[in-house]
């Protein structure tokens, strides 16, 4: 399903990052994707099903959660963090700022794929940790 990806701050992300980014609570607070209930129905997924979010820059596995923030069909919201950074558009349009909000993305159900822990994610994404 085609959507627009918006990343941003959430209470939990703001709270748990102060406790340390390798904590399970931090991971659980940011490796999620808030979706409109109707969009979830259309994808045939439940609250808590894993989804794959992809753009032309990369893809990631996140846990889909039903958004409590009104109706926003066609928009998914993902907290700032390493899980979504591989997916956002790095283009700065010559002003230094990447495009963290408003990127075209594709969401598909991925119930069999696991959400990685921060350590696994970093190991997968960064060559330096595998030397």
């Amino acid at each position, binding site marked *: 399903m085609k959507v627009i990806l*918006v990343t941003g701050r959430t209470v939990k992300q703001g*709270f748990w990052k102060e*406790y340390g980014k390798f904590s399970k609570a931090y991971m659980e607070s940011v490796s999620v994707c808030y979706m409109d209930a109707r969009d979830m129905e259309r994808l045939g997924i439940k609250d808590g099903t894993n989804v794959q979010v992809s753009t032309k820059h990369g893809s990631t596995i996140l846990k889909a959660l039903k958004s409590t923030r*009104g109706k*926003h069909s066609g928009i998914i919201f993902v907290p700032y963090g390493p899980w979504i950074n591989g997916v956002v558009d790095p283009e700065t349009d010559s002003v*230094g*700022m*990447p495009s963290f909000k408003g990127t075209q993305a594709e969401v598909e159900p991925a119930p069999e794929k696991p959400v990685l822990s921060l350590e696994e994610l970093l190991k997968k*994404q960064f060559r330096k940790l595998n030397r």
Partner: protein
Amino acid sequence: MRTVKHVTCPVCGCLCDDLELTIKDEKVVKVKNGCALCKAKFLGYSKHRVLKPLVRKNGRFFEVSYEEAVSRAAEILTEANYPLLYGWSMTSCEAVSAGIELAEEIGGVIDTTSTLCHGPSTLGIQDVGISSATLGQVRHRADLIVYWGSNPLIAHPRHMERYTIFRKGRFQKEKRKLIVVDVRKTETAETADIFLQIKPNMDYEVLQALRALIRDQELDVDEVAGIPTERLEEIADTMVECRFGALFFGSGLTMTRGKNRNIDAVLSLVSDLNKLTKFIAMPMRGHFNVTGADMILTWQTGYPYAVDFSLGYPRYNPGETSAVDILLREESDAALVVASDPVASLPRKAAEHLAENPLIVVDPHMSATARMADVVLPSTFVGIESGGTAYRMDHVPLPLKKIVEPPEGILSDEEILRIILSEVKRKKAEQMENP
């Protein structure tokens, strides 16, 4: 047990300075007046600490002395051709000042997290100018508040309670009006009198439509970004009719399509409104001292962020000298990160090059960035274990207090940067003597 009053909160740009902390056995056990983010920091900061400097050898970290770690850091920085010094928004102005000296000494680029939050706002302000005020003025006088692309209840939890909607002012006793503009119904939007849910990436169109309406021009379309024209007329009227309006804008404007042009438009709207009433605008700065980092850079180099010393004098050209661009072009050949976690916050392609650089991290925590480092220099928590100065989002400087003793032997960011700087100078002098 003792209590410390009038403590400044080292978390977000609100820099609340009314906290009351209870200390027992050199630990903060109770926080009065702080919000959830503030409590999370004061009660949780001591977890996941790094307590010994680390140096990576053959892919693994080894504990070393500060001396050895600083010497390795200075070696990396003196050998580099184009080092990047990044972070700076969660430390004191004094540390930033030392960092700028270091950047100049090694001919590097110094950039702050402004580049990822309100860099475009700075560009907009440089283009258009800004009419601003302190938060105190807003608190006592504003009768209309607008939050555009900003969700203070989450990102700046006490902003509304201390300065805007949930607060009575000396000259503003009645309830203020609140307009919220966002792409989803945020927590803040739920409290609004008027909520405009606009389509993503269309802020610029809405801002320009409002500008036209305020100048009594007619729109010959039925809707803009999903908002019916009559609704926009209603907003334009509300803005014109207020006595003192305050528009706060967040990364909802700077990170979406248009970026700095959105800011041009928002500041032009405020400038138009000032012909008819009194209106101010303010970026909702995120990290507690990101404003201070801008200020100190501006004093010392003439530019607020993305300052390049590689030619021996400061140059500023965001898009060229800004961190993300340098990393995407894979130009830097070493990096120093202070008080920030770019591996967790930069787009991955940029973070990848950062990790490939010989990387020095100064941070109290084991962050994702520290995990990639070649040298980790553990530091104190500024505003908890060491003092300094920080700037609130409205450019009011406030003191950060030292409340408890740091873990034994741990130095502050400023101290660490100063010893790296003198070690760099020593190494350079040595090279001059034995070329």
